[in-house]
């Protein structure tokens, strides 16, 4: 009995220890700079006292003779340092500006043929069985129903309703969303349907003579009337081979990460 109890206690202590270890290992030290400061305040006077005595004993006294020269040099160096830091800040600002401009350029370059309106996702669906986002542009910005929504990576979905300054976007992964798409190599058309699962679509109606390879790219085919032709959707992730070749299907991994989607573009010209 006693042995059993002590074994139990050991396990509990180990678990607590592990939890504390994990907790501590995840702490950022910078959060505790005030503790560090307190410690240094406590230690530093003693440390300098010891150093002073040590210098005295070792005969390092001539150090003080050059004190004035050193002080002057120090002020000069400090000024130079300030100047350098200032220029560094300026460089950093320029660098940040450069990268954002480059991003914009890439985005608009990629979809040069389309007239687009940029938008932000402002609201996400509360249900587990549908995927609808609300974006911050509406009829005032020229956005209408059935317009295509894209992101930097590829197709996002289409607009199902609009108000004056918001619009609801039905995502590609919503279970009622269907998109006709073209395989890159064979140029065959398949139908992709949302599965609600994270970033995956299920493609069906695969022609019997189509050769499928994992990693093959899919684009929109332009059929169906909503999505324009040639927008990137994603790549083939897994192929489900069935006994009957007529009903085989495959899973597509979308290029867009819907979980972390923030900025989108709405294509306004048909």
């Amino acid at each position, binding site marked *: 009995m006693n042995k059993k109890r002590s074994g139990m206690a050991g396990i509990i202590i180990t678990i607590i220890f592990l939890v504390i270890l994990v907790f501590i290992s995840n702490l950022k030290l910078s959060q505790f700079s005030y503790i560090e400061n307190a410690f240094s305040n406590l230690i530093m006077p003693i440390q300098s006292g010891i150093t002073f005595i040590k210098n005295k004993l070792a005969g390092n006294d001539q150090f003080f003779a050059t004190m004035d020269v050193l002080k002057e040099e120090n002020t000069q160096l400090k000024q130079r340092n300030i100047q350098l830091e200032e220029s560094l800040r300026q460089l950093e600002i320029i660098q940040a500006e450069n990268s954002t401009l480059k991003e914009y350029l890439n985005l608009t370059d990629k979809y040069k043929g389309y007239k687009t309106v940029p938008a932000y996702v402002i609201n996400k669906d*509360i249900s*587990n069985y549908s995927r609808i986002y609300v974006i911050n542009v509406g009829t005032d910005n020229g956005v209408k129903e059935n317009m295509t929504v894209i992101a930097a990576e590829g197709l996002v979905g289409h607009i199902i309703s609009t108000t004056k300054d918001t619009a609801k976007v039905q995502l590609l992964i919503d279970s009622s969303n269907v998109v006709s798409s073209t395989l890159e190599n064979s140029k065959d058309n398949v139908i992709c349907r949302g599965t609600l699962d994270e970033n995956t679509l299920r493609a069906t109606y695969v022609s019997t003579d189509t050769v499928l390879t994992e990693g093959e790219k899919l684009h929109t085919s332009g059929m169906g009337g909503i999505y324009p032709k040639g927008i990137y959707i994603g790549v083939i992730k897994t192929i489900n081979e069935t006994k009957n070749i007529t009903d085989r299907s495959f899973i597509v991994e979308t290029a867009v990460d819907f979980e972390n989607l923030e900025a989108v573009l709405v294509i306004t010209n048909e």
Partner: protein
Amino acid sequence: MKKIAVITCLILSFLFIYLLQVNFFLWFNLAGIKPNLIVILVLTIGLFAGKGIGTTFGILFGISLDFFIGKSIGISGIMLGIIGFIGGYLDKNFSKDSRVTMITMITIATVIYEIGIVLLNYFIHQAQINIIYFIEVLLVELIFNAIITIIIYPIIMKLGYKMEECFKENKILTRYF
């Protein structure tokens, strides 16, 4: 006067729950699956305030949900109305004073609501859903809802009896004597 206060309180709690679902549960979720607090709210209204008021509030909240974020107007309205009605019906047959019955009732209501939503979506929007995936998500959601019910049970009872006092003043005697 008291009625108006209670109704305002209900509407405010609906808005609060909506904001909670939209913001808080986007990161506080179990494997990406959110709970459904609105079903809990509407069922509670049905249970404590009766069929009529439960159904009315269910339809009202459902339609506003559809306006906020929904594919078409009415789907959540119909289902939440049904949940409110079920709440009123369950009140006559089950006791609300037990935590276990409350959890069971909320679980049943959530199952009915989600199945109804998926079926209506299937018929209206041709939304095809993988049954295995649906069951998986539903199970996690039920567990989540049950846990939340356990936590907020005292609040539900407190608000519930306030509602009962307000909406069913004359009936309270026949129930207990």
